[in-house]
């Protein structure tokens, strides 16, 4: 049995240690926010936070998450409060098909957690997830908007 905490809730899963975290989340724990796009850590649609750090869960064996804290898009809103990044995403109408967006949002939240006021260059470096619909311009705008959101609004 492997224990891990997902969005604040403890789980015990009986799976192979090499099973990717993404598939444990999706198929075992029914956490469908993280998406499958490539399986080789290229696209980032599966991005979740492992102890606060963004990881591509398709390429993280679940054993590496044992005893750790996993945060997915479903756990981002706190005490009924939208995260400022989610709010900025809605305000700026960022998503199109939306399939990559939970990964994009988790990557953006991680960026803002370590860099409260990122420059365009910082955004370029941090936001490497693929979006086929081409929402990049609005992702950039929304990250800047979230950075400017009042402190009290931040989760």
């Amino acid at each position, binding site marked *: 049995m492997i224990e891990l905490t997902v969005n604040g809730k403890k789980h015990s899963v009986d799976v*192979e240690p090499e*099973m*990717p975290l993404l*598939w444990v989340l*999706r*198929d*075992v724990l*029914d956490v*469908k*926010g993280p*998406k*499958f*796009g*490539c*399986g*080789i850590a*290229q*696209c980032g*649609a599966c991005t979740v936070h492992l102890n606060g750090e963004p990881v591509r869960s398709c390429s993280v064996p679940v054993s590496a998450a044992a005893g750790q804290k996993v945060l*997915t*898009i*479903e756990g*981002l*809103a706190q005490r*009924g*409060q*939208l995260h400022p990044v*989610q*709010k900025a*995403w*809605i305000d700026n*109408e*960022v*998503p*199109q*098909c*939306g*399939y*990559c*967006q*939970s990964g994009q*949002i988790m990557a953006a939240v991680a960026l803002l957690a370590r860099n409260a006021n990122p420059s365009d260059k910082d*955004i*370029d*470096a941090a*936001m*490497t*997830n*693929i*979006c*086929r*619909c*081409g*929402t*990049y*311009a*609005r*992702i*950039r705008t929304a990250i800047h908007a979230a950075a400017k959101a009042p402190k009290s*609004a931040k989760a």
Partner: protein
Amino acid sequence: MKNISRREFLKSSAAIGGGLTVGFGPLGAFAQNAAQKTGDAEINAWVVVRPDDGIIIRYARSEMGQGSMTSAPMLVAEELECDWRRVKVEYASANANVKRKRAWGDMASVGSRTIRNSQEYLRKAGATAREMLVAAAAQQWKVPASECTAQNSFITHGPSKRRVSYGKVADAASRLQAPKDVKLKDPKDWKLIGKSVKRIDIPDTVMGRQRYGIDTQLDGMLYAAIAQCPVFGGKVKAMDGSRVEGRRGIVKVLSMESFVAVVADNWWRAKEALRDVHIDWDVGANGNASSASLMEFYRSGLEAKEDIAVARKDGDFEAAFGASAKKLEAEYFTPYLAHSCMEPMGCTAVLKDGRLDVWTSTQNAEASLAVAAATAGVPLENVEVHRTQLGGGFGRRGGAQDFVRQGVMIAKAMEGKPVKMLWTREEDTQHDFYRPASLVRMKAALDDAGNPTAWYSRVASTSIFSTLVHLPLKPPFSPAEGVDPQAVASIFDIPHSIPNVQVEYAQRNAYVPVGFWRTVGHSQNPFVRESFMDELAAAAGKDPFEYRRALLQKSPKDLAILEATAKAAGWGSPLPAGVFRGIAETEGYGSYTSAVAELSVNKNGEVSIRRLVLGIDPGYAVNPDNIQAQLQGSAVFMLTAMFWGEITLRDGRVEQTNFDNYRMMRLREMPKVEVVLAPTGGFWGGVGEPGQASIAPAVCNAIFAATGKRIRSLPLKNHGLTLA
């Protein structure tokens, strides 16, 4: 900050433009418009009014990011005169569409035509429902309906000032006869159409609650991973699954003629086990095919003297070309491209007691339903295709329903158990219905003033219409049969004033499957047409904008968008040293588009795009912010394709597998895109696809201006160029 408990969320999403109701009905029972509860009154197929004045507008087509799930209901709401904040949108049931004699009509989102093709009946549905609600109120008050007006979900009787909400008269209205003729609003009276309305599906997406086909979860569901023959058209010769039998979670290994499936208790186990299944493929006749052999095949189309269909013939090209002193000839090539939807192909199905339930991300629920029924051997009425959002479509999930066929084949083999089949990215890249490769020969003759007197194109490519959708290729492209309209799109209908034009099509149907890829023929032929037009301008020693302008005097809409875009881009104004411009103009999907690229190219071949100005005239602009989003997205889609996109073949197989060798543009490469929305009204044009058309030629024409090198084939990586 808003509270976002479920209850509050419905309110807040309504406040920004309606919540989203997606019904995943209970297994075995058809989810017929799941949101409908007791007391809800269906005024007509499109409009349901609740006793509490909530409005449900049904949406028949698909949502894959193009925004039509918001803009199509806007058209209904405009005429319904309802409170948009109380509108919820739900998918019309594909099963109900069968049973109710296609009450919702065409369910496909393809060809940028959701708005274009349904705008009239959607607006009429809204107007009809409004008239019925008004009539019901008038009957209740015993006054003439002509004394009543409707606004914001209320009906008012003018003389007595009495007021009643839609919810109060909805039940009575639903029992009335629908009026035969309704008058639609004059566009100048529109309140909702033309305003930037928030997309109704976005809050669910941002909350991680949006459900795609891949997210289907059913009790007792099994999972399948599949391997298809690496050479198109091949079959399973022999299969040995003994190595994985008895392995943890493995339920069954299936040999299904053209593919092998492993069924397991989760998808990862199925996928891992599939690698240990030994499959001996009969690859068929194409095991030695390569990109080079395919190119020879297309070249045979350029050289052929017979079986050439003429798509257009104005005047006498041969005579004019022969008589001219100044001639140009060039060959252009555009490659096969994969769709690479972020959500790989997949399908969940359960076939039990003669009933079939299917969950899949589809651009055409009716086609999915038909393919599912035929595969299972059950009547159409016994099938439901449950609707979900699509993780990208781009044409992949419309015409070809291969994934539905496979999903149902597996479900049939698993006898009553629900099975979710999902492809790997590698399967997705290597088993697409690709944007056709196309080889085009161009010729033109110029008079002494540099104006074209003769223009010739011959296109050699695989026909999507004959190979995928099996439509007869016929006139209006007379005199010959055999012109695929997509193959010659934007070339055969060139709007420029040229007296002698001949456009020919050599159908060369290769074994590589082809399909509709966002913007289809307009994703490749404008590169040919508008680059060659630039060659003519250069040969004439004229400014490329002025050259086009002179030739478009008789095509006012093309001319207008060309001029509007050039003006916004500051065409002709001074640029910093090393920066150059390129321009292009096209028409397609009922809209007119133009692009100006402003860029520099350094000695390492890095192309820095400073600005990309994209103009569009879609006639009526229904949801302007969404149109801007579509054009921004079009820039990413086309820049990805033109710099890196190329599917190549060796030993009959596609060489590319995943995003590590089939490169996608990233955020850091996104140039500044400026959208010039210049709607002139009077017609309804598409917005999801036409924005791409002018981009490749505008960028390549700017590269010519910067380097003197004329680009005649894509992608640009093969010319040593990359996007900085």
